[in-house]
């Protein structure tokens, strides 16, 4: 019988951009058990809700993560608007959905680059991050910032994005699509990529359901759950929205789902730009608008990594009693533990990368 040993993995590791630690219990080269450990960068951002009023806190929420920063501001603003009973103009919903989809493209391109870098495909890494710059340039042109956009406020948007600019964004996305197709075709059809990803880190449909997994991690195992299909915000106005799924349940399936989601995000943006209404962009609620005492509200939105949960509780003052953000990665930790059971030690980095964990989001 092989002897068991424990190999510490992370929080500092060449392939891991995120501070997660794993105690890998191995028998020879096979992982028997993986115990995750986080908490290295806990910042107490949820606690800050007691020091910043509900209008100020949207800027804190954006700083939870550097990749899906807009999404966190959007989720927080939407939850607070629900708590206060504010209905935003439809244009606001459209602009938020457009920026959220741009964030999705940005996040997936960043992830694809990291994955390529993870198995030594460095030129692909460079191409992916070059394309990502296109999205960051769009953010800069439309919002003023490249990472922290600060355009989403409670009650609406800080400023409008005019129609000419939106059409320009669509043109740039057409160019991005052409270049992206070349990269993705190379990536998905490459034999060395397939040999590293196919059949590795398998999660069955039943396990994905049992472990309440979310996002492309779950969609790669055939779970057809996507909060956009519930029609929140402007997503309800889309003609045909179907979550992209794959049924293989391995690293390659998760990779394929994310690659396809970029095309889908471009199509969504173009459809929303064509339909965007002109009914104003709302504005900050007045100082007399306060959440009722003991009021609660939550929203669920689809972030690039999966479903995110935003919960707020009011106490009759301008400070909220509680803000809770449940990130997709928190929900996928259990799935990650399951996916690592029984795999080769050399495949651990690939499996973790295809789950695309964002520990900084999870730590808050």
């Amino acid at each position: 019988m092989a002897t068991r040993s424990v190999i510490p993995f992370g929080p500092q590791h060449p392939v891991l951009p995120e501070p997660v630690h794993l105690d890998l219990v191995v028998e020879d080269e096979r992982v028997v058990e993986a115990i995750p450990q986080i908490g290295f960068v806990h910042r107490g951002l949820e606690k800050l809700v007691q020091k910043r009023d509900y209008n100020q806190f949207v800027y804190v929420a954006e700083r939870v993560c550097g990749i899906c920063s807009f999404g966190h501001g959007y989720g927080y603003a939407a939850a607070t608007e629900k708590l206060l009973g504010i209905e935003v103009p439809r244009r606001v919903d459209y602009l938020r959905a457009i920026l959220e989809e741009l964030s999705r493209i940005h996040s997936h391109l960043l992830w694809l680059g990291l994955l390529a870098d993870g198995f030594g495909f460095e030129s692909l890494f460079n191409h992916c991050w070059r394309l990502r710059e296109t999205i960051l340039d769009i953010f800069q042109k439309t919002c003023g910032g490249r990472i922290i956009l600060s355009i989403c406020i409670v009650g609406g948007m800080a400023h409008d994005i005019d129609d000419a600019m939106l059409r320009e964004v669509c043109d740039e996305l057409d160019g991005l699509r052409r270049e992206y197709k070349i990269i993705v075709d190379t990536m998905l059809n490459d034999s060395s990529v397939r040999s590293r990803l196919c059949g590795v880190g398998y999660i069955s449909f039943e396990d994905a359901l049992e472990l309440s997994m979310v996002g492309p991690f779950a969609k790669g195992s055939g779970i057809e759950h996507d909060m956009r299909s519930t029609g929140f915000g402007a997503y309800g106005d889309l003609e045909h929205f179907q979550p992209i799924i794959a049924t293989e349940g391995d690293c390659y399936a998760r990779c394929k789902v994310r690659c396809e989601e970029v095309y889908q995000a471009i199509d969504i943006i173009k459809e929303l730009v064509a339909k965007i209404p002109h009914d104003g962009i709302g504005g900050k609620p007045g100082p007399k608008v306060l959440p009722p005492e003991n009021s609660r509200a939550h929203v669920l939105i689809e972030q690039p990594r999966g479903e995110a949960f935003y919960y707020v509780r009011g106490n009759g003052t301008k400070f909220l009693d509680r803000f809770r953000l449940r990130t997709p990665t928190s929900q996928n930790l259990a799935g990650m533990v399951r996916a690592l059971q029984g795999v080769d030690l050399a495949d651990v980095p690939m499996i973790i990368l295809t789950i695309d964990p964002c520990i900084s989001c999870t730590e808050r």
Partner: protein
Amino acid sequence: MYTTEFVDVPLIELLQRVQSLKHEGMRFVQLCAEFPESGIDLVYTFYDETRDNALNLCVSVPEGAEVPSIQGLYFAAFSYENEAHDLFGVNFINMKLDFGGHFFSLAETSPMTVITPEMKAEREKAAKLRAAKAAKEAKAAREAAEAKSAERALTEDRAAADAAAVAAVNEMAPAAKAAKPSEEERAAMMEAKLANMDPEKAAKVRAVLEAKKAKDAARAAAETPAADTAKEGE
């Protein structure tokens, strides 16, 4: 768009309730701890994919109470239970994966149960405002009640005074009617007075009275045809 529900559940029924949700095929979304004015509140969220409904079970946990772990039913809850333990000091029992308070590396225990000075000041201000508002409302209600009762009393007094005045007038009216002398009586009284007067003076008075009588009769005779003419004109 999905719907949202918040349901209060006693701590003792939590596990049973979660078990039934698991059998119904609900997906576990999250567990969140809160620190209201006293004790800890836990909010368990489940999602029903078939009805697009997010169900929140709200459980109040008294200080120091033990909370059964739901990791046996939903293993995904392990990170939330360990987080609630480290940040809020919630005491979970029967956890499958227990980090023993080392899930987060923290400088102090249960940091989320510390109320910030800003929040404390805001809560006190809100409590004072609530108390002042309640006192103002109570005062306004009291004053309104007093004004109403005073008005009622005044109305009753007025009604009583009016009734008394009407009664007095009614009582006085027959007497007044009785006291008023008729034409003949006045003439008789005048005759009695004249009889007691100096005859020369009495003669003068009689002459004046006769003249006045004649004048009144002439005026009356002059007014009667004018009224008849006016009627004819109409």
